[in-house]
């Protein structure tokens, strides 16, 4: 009995001691203002509220917060977290102790408040340690898949992280893990997907995948080149990044395409790894992946090395460029018929030429398999025959490597643009102001961007006519996309454009109308970087000033587009439109030239002549564009 009393006494003493130490830590944290510290706020993804005082976390899973009101109360969450660290229990395969579940919080608070391990015993986190050992991190690499062929909106891109392990060489980066933040959905309807995604309709989740799966997805299936930026995080920062990724692995964030997207979350994750950068603060409204890459790499010394991983389509282009046209044609024929007569002709070539033809044929067959969705029955026997043929030729000395573009995407111009200009319309002088939050048009400095791909969002232009004391909206284009993808014997993409805008139109008597218009056709590369294109366009206009309140229009567009050297871009063309409800035709010729003056500045000359019924309307302007 006495022994029992003594035991109970000791137990309660231990309990009291624990409570004492918890109180001690909680008040130490309070007096040091830990809950308001940036590192703590970043760990819980709390952001200051826009209007009211206080904070709200971007994390949406209740399991991420230990305090009932943790999502909006960093202090309560800190108290609850400290209390949970004292909790009983050992890890099981299905349950983690809070010290392990929230290992980044634990490690940070342990250091910040100098935990006494005698009074707050440290738990062993077997699951985390096994996971960490499997990833075996040496360095973190920021991965940026560039635009798809013929898909300008993908130039907004995606970013993910790769964790390179200690056992790897540069030749074996395929075998590392990728940390990816993505919307979780089975939605296959692109419009529903986009619409819901804009408003946070899907949960966003972190996941981990072998990197080779991502390479397959981007390089091979989507034909996107990949840029790999090896970052110089210290070992401690890398460990913190993974500890925090571990915490986030089970947490929902609402996924917003424009703001709280993959790139934003990766920036927030890197902010936890290297406190004090606060990069996420720079993307309060929207986070364009290439902008987040640019911002990440701004810090002196953070970029260890950049590496270009070409897509299959880029590799094919490079191979074709190295062959004479008859040999390139032979490669196409061989891809379709690798055991027939093209094989005989290939084997008659010198070994290095035969090798080049056979390798191109295989890559092209794989390209066609994906692009044309060819059945396996067609592809597999041909693929095997091509590789057997290749294996009978001498082994390769060195890989065929397309050169990396001279300018990386992160070195291109900033995606926001402001322009100031002056000009004359129909003899009337004006000054002009334009504002475009994102992203790139054909006349903008080309370096670092996909050629022939334009995507503008919310492009606004207004003019001031001092003689008439008149301010006029020229256009407000919500979206304005152009894709000029050259066709050749290997690739036959469709070129297209689409615009949705409020726009000042001559046909409406220089009134602003709402319009959705687009076109489709083909582009051909006449000489390197000189394109000719032809499209059929269709147009819908709506405004009360039109006779019926609306009109349709259709007609052809012909043009040339050229990148001359590094600094000059030219676009010129002619279009005709027949307006169905207005019983009138309109023809227009236009020429635009953009000249890069400095890294973030360009000069632009625009001329157009519109012929409508019996009048000619001349419009010309010169403007200076700043990118940031």
């Amino acid at each position: 009995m006495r022994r029992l009393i003594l035991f109970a006494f000791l137990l309660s003493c231990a309990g009291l001691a624990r409570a004492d130490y918890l109180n001690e830590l909680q008040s130490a944290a309070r007096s040091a203002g830990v809950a308001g510290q940036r590192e703590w706020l970043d760990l819980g993804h709390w952001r200051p509220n826009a209007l009211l005082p206080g904070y709200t976390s971007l994390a949406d899973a209740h399991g991420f917060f230990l305090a009932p009101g943790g999502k909006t109360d960093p202090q309560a969450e800190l108290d609850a977290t400290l209390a949970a660290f004292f909790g009983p229990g050992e890890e099981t395969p299905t349950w983690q102790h809070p010290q392990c579940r929230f290992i980044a919080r634990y490690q940070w608070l342990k250091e910040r408040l100098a935990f006494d391990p005698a009074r707050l015993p440290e738990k062993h986190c077997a699951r985390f340690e096994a996971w960490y050992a499997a990833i075996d991190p040496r360095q973190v690499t920021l991965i940026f898949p560039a635009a798809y062929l013929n898909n300008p909106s993908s130039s907004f891109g995606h970013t993910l992280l790769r964790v390179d392990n200690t056992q790897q060489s540069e030749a074996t980066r395929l075998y590392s893990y990728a940390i990816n933040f993505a919307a979780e959905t089975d939605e296959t309807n692109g419009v529903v997907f986009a619409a819901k995604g804009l408003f946070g309709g899907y949960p966003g989740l972190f996941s981990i995948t072998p990197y080779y799966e991502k390479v397959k997805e981007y390089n091979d299936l989507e034909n996107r080149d990949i840029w790999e930026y090896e970052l110089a995080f210290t070992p401690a920062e890398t460990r913190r990044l993974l500890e925090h990724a571990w915490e986030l692995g089970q947490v929902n964030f609402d996924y917003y395409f424009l703001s709280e997207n993959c790139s934003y979350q990766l920036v927030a994750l890197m902010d936890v790894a290297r406190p004090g950068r606060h990069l996420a603060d720079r993307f309060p409204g929207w986070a364009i992946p290439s902008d987040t890459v640019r911002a990440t790499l701004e810090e002196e010394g953070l970029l260890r090395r950049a590496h270009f991983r070409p897509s299959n389509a880029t590799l094919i282009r490079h191979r074709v460029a190295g062959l004479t046209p008859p040999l390139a044609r032979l490669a196409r024929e061989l891809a379709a018929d690798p055991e027939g007569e093209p094989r005989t002709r290939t084997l008659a070539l010198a070994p290095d030429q035969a090798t080049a033809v056979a390798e191109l044929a295989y890559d092209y067959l794989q390209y066609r398999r994906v692009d044309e969705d060819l059945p396996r029955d067609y592809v597999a026997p041909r693929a095997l025959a091509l590789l057997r043929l290749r294996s009978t030729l001498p082994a390769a000395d060195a890989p065929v490597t397309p050169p990396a573009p001279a300018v990386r995407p992160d070195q291109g111009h900033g995606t926001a643009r402001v322009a100031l200009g002056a000009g004359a319309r129909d003899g009337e002088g004006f000054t002009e102001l334009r504002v475009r939050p994102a992203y790139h048009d054909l006349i903008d400095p080309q370096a670092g961007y996909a050629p022939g791909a334009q995507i503008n969002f919310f492009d606004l232009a207004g003019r001031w006519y001092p003689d008439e004391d008149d301010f006029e909206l020229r256009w407000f284009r919500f979206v304005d996309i152009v894709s000029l993808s050259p066709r050749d014997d290997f690739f036959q993409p469709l070129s297209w454009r689409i615009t949705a805008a409020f726009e000042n139109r001559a046909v409406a008597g220089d009134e602003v109308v709402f319009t959705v218009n687009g076109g489709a056709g083909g582009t051909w590369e006449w000489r390197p970087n000189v394109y000719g294109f032809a499209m059929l366009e269709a147009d819908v206009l709506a405004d009360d000033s039109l006779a019926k309140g609306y009109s349709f229009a259709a007609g052809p567009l012909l043009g040339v587009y050229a990148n001359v050297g590094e600094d000059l871009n030219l676009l010129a063309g002619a279009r005709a439109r027949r307006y169905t409800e207005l019983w009138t035709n309109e023809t227009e010729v236009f020429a635009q030239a953009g000249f890069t003056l400095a890294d973030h500045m360009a000069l632009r000359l625009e001329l157009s002549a519109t012929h409508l019924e019996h009048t000619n309307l001349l419009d010309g302007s010169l403007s200076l564009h700043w990118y940031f």
Partner: protein
Amino acid sequence: MKKIAFSALALALSSGTAFAQQNNVGCGLGSMVFDGQSGIAPQVLAATTNGTSGNQTFGITSGTLGCTQDGTVSSTVKLSMFTGSNMDKLAADMSKGQGEALETLADLMGVESADKAAFFAATHDNFDKVFTSSNVTAEEVIANLNKVLAADAELSRYAA
């Protein structure tokens, strides 16, 4: 009017999988595998419904049963999973006797740097014996490669 504008915007955005990536393959079936709650059933489901070899010309792999609870690949299946998931690239690399996928395979098989050239040459010279048909599976490729290595005096110690 506003509606039209928004659907145009939505259309523009949806023409790329801009930002969002819907599919996860390999070990990570998104969060499910990463998430401690998942257990084995969703992983089996992942292996059957979202297998890694659907997008390839060659071979069907045994699936992703080697995933750990937290999304990494357990060491026993590293080699077979990599092979299964990279059959097209491995086939192309072996036919040339070099390449990134082949380098990685050599590492996973524990081939030392001094022996890599011989290993690459062996895959090139014996391509027919490794990729025996267009229906060859990852398991068969590994078994065939082991036979080739076993028959090679220099490389026999790497045969499993």
